[in-house]
């Protein structure tokens, strides 16, 4: 057994998931590749969205992958950090907006 749950070198083995379920694995990678192609959004914009989501999902593999992908596309560190703040803002907003539910409940029970 490896000493930690996450090994950075495992990212290189991602493609191997097809070995235990070829059809589903291949369909996933085909879909994945298609999603990141240039479309109504540029591949660069998609890369920044992926970086922000990688952080909200707290996926270390995705963070490594989309930081490198961003650098390859000429994305600056300022752009990367702003994208992460967008993710963080939604995360914290999603927490705080539930405060309304708490307020509703307080008002109902103790208003």
């Amino acid at each position, binding site marked *: 057994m490896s000493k930690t749950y996450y090994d950075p070198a495992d990212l290189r083995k991602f493609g191997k998931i097809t070995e235990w379920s070829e059809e589903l694995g291949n369909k996933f990678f085909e879909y994945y590749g298609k999603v990141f192609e240039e479309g109504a959004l*540029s591949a660069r914009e998609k890369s920044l969205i992926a970086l922000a989501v990688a952080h909200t999902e707290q996926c270390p593999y995705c963070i490594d992958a989309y930081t490198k992908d961003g650098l390859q*596309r*000429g994305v600056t560190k300022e752009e990367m950090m702003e994208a992460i703040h967008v993710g963080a803002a939604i995360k914290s907003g999603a927490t705080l907006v539930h405060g309304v539910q708490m307020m509703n409940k307080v008002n109902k029970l103790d208003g």
Partner: protein
Amino acid sequence: MTKLKTQSLKKRQSDLANTNKQLEILSNGIFANGELPTFKDKIAETNQFPLKAKPLEILQINVGYMCNQVCEHCHVDAGPDRKEIMTRETMQQILDVVKTTGAHTLDLTGGAPEMNPNFRWFVEEASQIGVKDFIVRSNLTIIRANKKYYDLPEFFKKHNIHVVSSMPHWTRGKTDKQRGEGVFDMSIKALQELNAVGYGMPDSNLKLDLVYNPSGAFLPGDQASMEKDFKKALMEDFGIQFHNLFAITNLPISRFLDYLIASENYEDYMYSLVEAYNPMAVENVMCTNTLSVSWDGYLFDCDFNQMLDLPVNSKSKHISEYKTELLEGRNIVISQHCYGCTAGAGSSCQGTVA
């Protein structure tokens, strides 16, 4: 003024100043234990081994390793301390050969080629031969480094030189990180001066192309997208125009190899290169139509092999004994650094190849 980013490996007396050491690293470890295939095995999978030289199209001449900059990733290990400079005698031998070959492109590189004391004489002589494309790889800052270089834009224009210049990014921070403090501002001034004499303008015959190579341990992105981003940013921020952007992959040799090892990125970088291997790029890899001439007149398959001291596999080893029949069809000398030219859309001194 610009500040030197680092020192040459030679000046630092680094182990890697020894090219045998570099070749040893590129052949050992992950390539010796079978974790990754060697370049030879990889191209053999698609029956592309051995790579053979086609008729010569591009003669690339390294007129010396002296440079006013010491960029972090320089594959030449160039710098102000490097005294290897091409003599006029060797230049004359090259001129004699250029007249007899079918090469359509002459490509001067360095170091900073303009620092060779015979640079202007050579350009004047060579431009009379009538090659179709006469390139000078200028680092831009040299144009502003000293009064004696201020007239270079006019000199280039007079001889219809195709100027190709390095620009790692459209932002100051990323450019200076790789090339030294102050390099970005000085490069911008130089580009504006080149624009002012007509270089890089949309309908101008005075060609100005930029070379982008990544500032760290990652591969270049899509060349066309990068060109769009560069053009937009340089125009909006500085009113600068240029023709094409060449996206070039950093090869794992010399100072870039040193950087990869020191930053513990070597293995990941080699994995990235091998994973991005593209057999289509092998078809058009530049060593098959190019010859690289060193400052002392020796012949190499490419500038990278020159820096690794891997001479051509031919009896014709020096420009003074240049023989087309001995060089055409020769087997190209390869090692694992060659993966740098076959990753993704491929990489060459003229940008992508696939």
